[in-house]
């Protein structure tokens, strides 16, 4: 039933997309840093619709457990677990839950899953329909890393952040690329502000279309940024012409968002309706 419903919604969205494309071409081409239609790639090659209750499908996903090195390189505060309290598939959604609790020396727990060695892709359209958490210090992400990261450590392997969001800025999302010479604080980003709505009150689609020499970032029916080799520092390498894998996680605290404060409400949930990948051809 859910599959059928989603199919119907998808068709409806495609129609809306067509209408919106026309609107965008007329009204928004000067405002947004774009020169193409929102999405062009429609050949679905892989998806996880999260329709089987329980743990995330092990054919697609691997858990990352613990605190990594220095809080996964960002001084993040959470301990990632594989417990159903932190991650489960339920009622057609993947639910990642961040909790405030003392666990293995950390003050928070959450979850992070990756498709490394299971689902890796070079180029294409990558999107997820998600509802965001909210509050100071909450940092969910839907992102990608170069599949050769074991041989070619970060940032050499490259990173594409399809969606990042800070709970203290509930109207803003941003897409980013990291590579050698343009990583961390020097990474190259595009930002989108909903303006008169929020990311934590309903679902939104976050995606990229990625091909040779470009990554286009979109939210729903708005293409809000395009990054190309011209955007990275002169002399640095464009490291996005090879396979990447996908990651989904919700971090707590860390260098970018700062720590939660007394107003941050726990638990917080990142709810993912689906992840879909369309081929570049």
């Amino acid at each position, binding site marked *: 039933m859910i599959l059928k419903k989603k199919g119907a919604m998808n068709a409806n969205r495609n129609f*809306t997309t067509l*209408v*919106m494309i*026309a*609107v965008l071409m*007329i009204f928004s081409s000067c405002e947004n840093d774009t020169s193409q239609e929102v999405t062009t790639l429609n050949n679905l090659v892989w998806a996880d619709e999260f329709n089987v209750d329980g743990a995330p499908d092990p054919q697609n996903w691997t858990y990352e457990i613990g605190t990594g090195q220095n809080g996964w390189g960002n001084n993040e505060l959470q301990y990632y677990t594989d417990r159903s309290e932190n991650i489960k598939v339920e009622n057609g959604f993947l639910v990642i839950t961040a909790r405030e609790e003392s666990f293995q020396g950390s003050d928070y727990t959450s979850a992070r899953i990756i498709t490394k060695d299971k689902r890796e892709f070079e180029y294409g359209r990558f999107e997820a329909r998600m509802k965001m958490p*909210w*509050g*100071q210090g909450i940092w969910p992400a839907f992102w990608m890393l170069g599949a050769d990261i074991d041989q070619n450590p970060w940032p050499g392997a490259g990173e594409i952040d399809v969606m990042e969001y800070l709970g*203290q*800025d*509930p*109207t803003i999302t941003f897409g980013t690329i990291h590579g050698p010479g343009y990583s961390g604080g020097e990474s190259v980003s595009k930002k989108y502000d*909903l*303006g*008169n*709505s*929020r990311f*934590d*009150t309903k679902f939104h689609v976050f995606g990229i279309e990625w091909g040779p020499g470009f990554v286009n970032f979109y939210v729903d029916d708005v293409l809000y940024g395009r990054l190309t080799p011209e955007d990275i520092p002169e002399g640095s390498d464009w490291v996005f012409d090879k396979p990447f894998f996908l990651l989904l996680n919700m971090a707590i605290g860390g260098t970018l968002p700062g720590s939660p404060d007394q*107003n941050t*409400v726990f638990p917080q949930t990142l709810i993912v309706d689906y992840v879909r990948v369309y081929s570049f051809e």
Partner: protein
Amino acid sequence: MMHLMNNDKMRKVSRTLCITSIATLLFSCVRDEEPLPAATFPTTAEVFTDVPVGLTDEFFISFDPAGGANTDGFGTDDSEAFEETTSIRIEVPSATNADGSFIGGIFRDRGAGRNLTGYDALTFWAKASTTATLGTVGFGTDFIENKFPVSRSNLELSTDWKQYIIPIPDASKLTQERGLFLFSAGSQSTGGNGYTLWLDEIKFENLGTLAQDRPSILGGQQVLQEGFLEVPVQITNLTQTLNSADGDITVSASPLYFDFTSSNETVAVVDEMGLVQVRSIGEATITAKIGNTVANGSLNLNVEGGFVFAQAPTLEASKVVSLFSDAYNDIPVSRYNSFFEPFQTTLGGVLPVGSESIISYTNMNFVGIVFNDVTFPAEAVAPIDATNLTHLHFDINVQEEIQPGDFIEIELSDYNSDPALAARVTISASQLLERKWASIDIPLSDFTALTSRSRVGLLLFDSDKTISDIYLDNIYFYDDTE
């Protein structure tokens, strides 16, 4: 360009057309039989742009000057504006201004009110001649019914224009609102110095960025309290907190935004104003909601019987100078809880009990009843000339188990000299009763160091934390000579 409108808009337009046609049909065919639909009021958003929009002719309606409001400082300014040409200019008076030490009031709709159900916030721009804290801004007060007041306190003003948001706790309630703006400003944050405040572009908006509502009653606390038959309890400290693009915003909200519920209506019922009536012995918990969101905080009442008051005084009024009693006319008192900073921990004060009232102190170390013109000059009242009075009386009811070493020292101060004279008398544990009234009469001559009694102005109760919770009643000086 209509065909480029998105689906949602198209649906809305067509729905509106349908409703319009249905309405037209109803009106034209069955006008005489069908009741008219509920009147709807204008949805005008603007309150002040370059001019007041749809407000009463007086534009600004001040708080009562008898309450200290300064009515002189309100006007407009054609040389300052956030947008276009004109802003509202408010001269906030100094603490010593003889015409009133604060300025404030409301803007009221000139008609029967506005339908604000389509908005989620009141917004405005403000700046000040100096950094300052603006005491209160809100809406919903119309000086007529005052049904839906909302206020935000302590807004930080800067010398640059900045936008401020006052979230609407539940817009569905505001179908006919006349109270469109309220402000109150004093010089507490500027060392008593006056300053200039400008306001502009005051309007209701549908920001779309306010969410994650967290209503709260009783400060979000789960309060356990003894209830007494026929003694009503008011649910206080009602707030709504919403998350905005810039973080949480909390406003105080009228009880009428909340839906209150009693878990046991045989024991206690609660009305729409949050007033709880205690009906019978038992236990009841009062909770509340705004819309579908349950408020943090609750009141659990345990009712074991009626409230037992202290024995009513019998002395003739002519022999009594009363600080606090339902039996006599009390003299003006500036504070029934001194809230002396920074060491006083004592909370509480006057507590209405049915049609009468008592004083209830909790978390006590020491606390004063202040009735002089020295301690808090802004609240000056005349001290008592007790030269010809002989005794101090009060009734005290200790709301906890009394230990043998417990005591309360009673201190009186006389302000005839500087520094004031002070003297103490100790009430020992044996003179006190647990959860019962004890009647205490102290000869003023026992306050031996009090060589003058012509300007007595402070009565201090000091338990040094040996006793935490007490009730007091019938506090008066008297003359027992025939």
